[in-house]
Structure formats: C-alpha cells, structure tokens
C-alpha cells in the first residue's frame, strides 16, 4: 500500500510540478501585479489596489480594443460557422473527390497565425492592388488593410479561411453520427433537401453547434498572432477624440502596453480578458448541464 502511494506521487509529480511552476504561481503573481505599479524594470513594486482597473475603463485605446474585439468575435462566429457548415454539407454530399476537398479545406488551419498573416498581408497590400491597377478597378487600388472602417471584416475573412476547415471537421463528425435512415426516410416522404437540412440535420447537430460556437468565441477573443503580422494593429483611426489603432485587438493591446514597459497596466488588461473568458466558460458549462438534463 505504501509503495502504491509512492507510485501515485511519483506519477503525478512531473505534471503537478510543471503546472504549479508554469501556471499556478505565475497566475497568482499575475493577479497581484495587476494591482501594483510594476514596470518590468524596477524591482521596487508597490501595491496600488484597483487603480489600474479604474484607469483602464477611462482609457480610450483599451475601450476601443475591447469593443472591436467583441465586434470581431461576433463577426467571426457568423462567418466561420456559416462557411464551415456549408463546407461540411458539401464534403458529406455525394459529389466526387469529397475526401480530397475535405483534406484541402483543412490545410489553412495547419499554417499558424504568424505565417498566414504575412501571406495575407501580401495578398491585400500587393496582389489585390496589382489586380486593381491592371484592370483599373479603383476600389481595389487602395489596400483593404489601410481602411480603418472595414479592417476588422478583413481580419475576420482571413480568420475564416484559417478556421473554417477545422470547424468543418466538427460538423462533419456530427453529420456522420446522424443515422442515414433518418434523412432517407424524410426524402421518401417527399421532404426536399433544404427542408431536410433545416428540420432534421440542424436540430440533430445542436451539440456540434455549441462546441463550435464557443471554440470560435474563445479563439477570436484571444486572437494575437495573425493580428500582429497581418495588420500590426493598423491603420490609425480616432476613438473618443484620441488616436487609436483601428485593428488592435485586446491581446495585441496587452502586448503593446507591456512593450511600452507599462507592465502593471498590461497585467490589469489581461485580468479583464481572463474575467471575460471565465464568464463565457461558465455560460458554456451551464448550457451543457442543461442539455444533460434534457437528454
């Protein structure tokens, strides 16, 4: 028995130790630093209470980043899920080469945000402009990435390109778990394709929709890599009378605050991001609980 206990401790130790050192301790430090005047340089750190948080909600650049992150997330939820649902219908239909298509649509997900950001920056700043020049289409001659009003939509489009293939896989798995006899029976009864999708497929896929919804939500909220290399936050715009960066999402706002050595302020912003994610997860957990009861 004692040997069993020794094995238990030995087996759990590596993960518990790494987890404590890498996540738990930095997490509590992080909460603490958000209430200090930490600047990343001086070791002399003072407790300042909730001052940083009060400051955040009166600083336009943070409010702007927070709001466009919510907008960006909302657009993504619609874009990604509509496109990936469409793709999943296509690759589960009777067309030829559907496995080839399914494999192909997933490739963008493998690339990684940093690399694909550069690629799309080139496409928007160079390729599309070149097309505009050669065909004399004026609307293409100015890069989409330099238009503050629509840059968020462009980022969502790129994000959709990256994630649609992944979410598609979740929908495909869900569609394949629905008994084929159900759809066939409805077809025999004379229901056309759209009716079958609306009245059989979609209700049966409720679980997959919840998963995909929250997956898109959390990944959009934490978006950083692609934001950095596609737009680097630009172009400049104004919000509440202050100059701000039109496409600077929350994670990037945190990053650039810390780069300016305003560490405590960056930490407070990160805590706000954390709280937002906790709220989202609690909602997700409660939805899942409700579903279990219904089942």
């Amino acid at each position, binding site marked *: 028995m004692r040997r069993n206990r020794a094995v238990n401790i030995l087996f759990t130790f590596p993960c*518990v130790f790494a987890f404590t050192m890498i996540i738990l301790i*930095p*997490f509590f430090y992080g909460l603490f630093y958000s209430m200090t005047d930490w600047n990343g340089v001086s070791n002399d750190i003072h407790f300042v209470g909730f001052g940083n948080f009060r400051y955040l909600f009166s600083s336009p650049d943070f409010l702007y980043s927070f709001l466009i992150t919510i907008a960006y997330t909302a657009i993504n939820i619609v874009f990604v899920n509509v496109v990936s649902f469409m793709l999943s219908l296509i690759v589960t239909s009777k067309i030829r080469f559907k496995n080839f298509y399914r494999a*192909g649509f997933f490739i963008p997900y493998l690339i990684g945000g940093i690399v694909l950001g550069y*690629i799309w920056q080139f496409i928007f700043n160079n*390729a599309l402009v070149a097309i505009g020049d050669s065909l004399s289409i004026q609307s293409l001659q100015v890069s989409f990435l330099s238009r503050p009003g629509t840059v968020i939509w462009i980022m969502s489009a790129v994000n959709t390109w990256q994630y649609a293939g992944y979410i598609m896989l979740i929908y495909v798995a869900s569609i394949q778990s629905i008994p084929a006899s159900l759809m066939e029976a409805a077809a025999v009864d004379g229901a056309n394709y759209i009716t079958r999708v609306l009245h059989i497929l979609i209700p049966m896929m409720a679980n997959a929709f919840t998963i995909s919804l929250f997956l898109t939500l959390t990944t959009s909220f934490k978006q950083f890599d692609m934001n950095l*290399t596609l737009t680097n936050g630009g172009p400049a715009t104004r919000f509440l009378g202050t100059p701000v960066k039109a496409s600077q999402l929350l994670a990037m706002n945190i990053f650039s605050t810390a780069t300016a050595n305003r560490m405590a302020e960056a930490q407070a912003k990160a805590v706000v991001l954390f709280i937002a994610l906790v709220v989202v997860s609690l909602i997700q957990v409660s939805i899942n609980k409700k579903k279990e009861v219904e089942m």
Partner: protein
Amino acid sequence: MARNSTLAQKRRSTHPSQAVLGFFVIVLFVLFMIPFAMVVLNSAKTSKEIIYSAISMPSRWGQLLTNISLIFNNPTVDYLGAFWDSTVITVVSLIVIVLFSSMCAWVLVRNKSAWSTILFMVFVAAMVIPFQVLMYPLVRWMRVVGEFFHIRLLGTVPGIVFAYLGFGCPLSIFIFHGFIKNIPLELEESATIDGCSKGKTFFLIVFPLLQPIIVTVLILNGIWIWNDYLLPLLVLGSNGVVQTIPIAVTAFAGAYLKQWDLILTSTMIAMLPIIILYLFAQRYIIKGMVEGSIK
C-alpha cells in the same frame, strides 16, 4: 415504360444541381488555395518582378532555388538553426507531455480519493486562463527561479520544454482521463494478481492501450507547439541562441521590410514541413483534431 420515365426524370432533376454544386465546390476550393499559389508564384520572383506585378507568372522558375538558398545562407537569421531548434523543442515537448500526462491521468482515474478529484478539477479549471495573464509574470518568475538555483531556464531548450509541459498538461490530462475511464479495470487487476508492480502495470498494460488517444494528444499539441509564437518569443527572446521557425519568420520580415520575394520564400519554407507531414498522416491528423475538439 412509366418506370423508365420516372428514372429519367430523376436523373434529369438531380443532375443539374449536382453539376452546379460540383462547379461551386471547385470555385470555393480554388479560392481557398489561392494564397498558397501566391506564395509559390512570388517565391520564384525577384523583388523587382514583384513590384512590377504581384500577380504575373514568374519569368524564371530557377529564381525559386536562388531565393531558397538566399534564405538558408542568410547572415541575419539562421533558418537551418531555427528548423533544428523547432524540431527538437516540438519533439521533446511532445514526448514529455504524452508520458507525464498519461501517467498523471491514470493515477487520477484509478486512485479514487478527494485529492484526485480536486487535482483534476484544478487542471480543468486552469484551461480557461488565457496566456496573456501568465506571460509576463512567468518570464519574471522563471528568471527568479533560475537565478536562485543557478540554472538557465530562459533562452534554453530545457526551459521552454518545461514551460510546454506546464501549458500542455491540463488539456492532455483531460483527454487521457476521459479515455482511461473507459478502460476495463479487470486487465490491470489480473496483472496485479500475476505479480506485476504498479509501475509495470502502467507501462506494460495501460500505456500500449492508450495508443489511439496518444495520436490525438500528439497532434493537438504538435500543431500548437510548432506554430506557437508568443511563448518562444518571451522565453527564448527574439534574437537568442535558440530560435523557432515563427520567430525566425518574424525576424526575417522585420529585417527585410517589404522584400516580399524573401519573406514569401521564408513563409513557404516554414509551411512545407507541416504540409508534407499532413499529406502522409492526414487520416490521423483529421481524426485527432475531431476527437480533441469534441472532448
């Protein structure tokens, strides 16, 4: 006769819609693949050619090899070194994560105590914490710990592997936990009766049974670690001795501003290994992604 006509009708009524769908899919697929085509086309051009036109065909495909050799022989960014470091970091982290997470998960499932439950809950809850809350305290903490024990955690491979174990283990433990719960206990009991020690039981009986779920854990963590940018940036630094590919790509793009011939070639080189791997292990990767997301 009547039967023939209905068959013919059926064929006529489904055929056009199938053709439309087929055409639509091809268009969509081409749209999805255009970014890759842009990368390859423009990687085979000189900077001048790209400025002249970003959408034309390259005049000389041999330029592709010239660009590739320019990148590998580049004095500012050591691409080959970054490749090697990325590979070592990813492979070692994956081995460590799979081994330690499965050991930990097994103990948490089989050892029914309040401690196991609490520990598991803590791991699961920690998955909500965004990296942004941890990143700056983590760097400071790693420096403090390193100085205290006279070891170098920042800027070294062991340091970042340890960090990846910490960040990777909660999700991995969660996935292993779900799988191990469904392995019948009888197997392990009979091994114990036959005189197998607890450690041996795990490595000889349980671990081989985990093979399908190990693939899932490898793929989920592998794609993440290979493409990860922020953690290597903070732990290894942007011009440290140890580099990863995403850092090398950003360093390159920063040093050769707007020299798209070289930047795009560098992104192509960064994408190739993972796409080649995908072509060979496609079935496993798709299966792993689906299982990882649904859990």
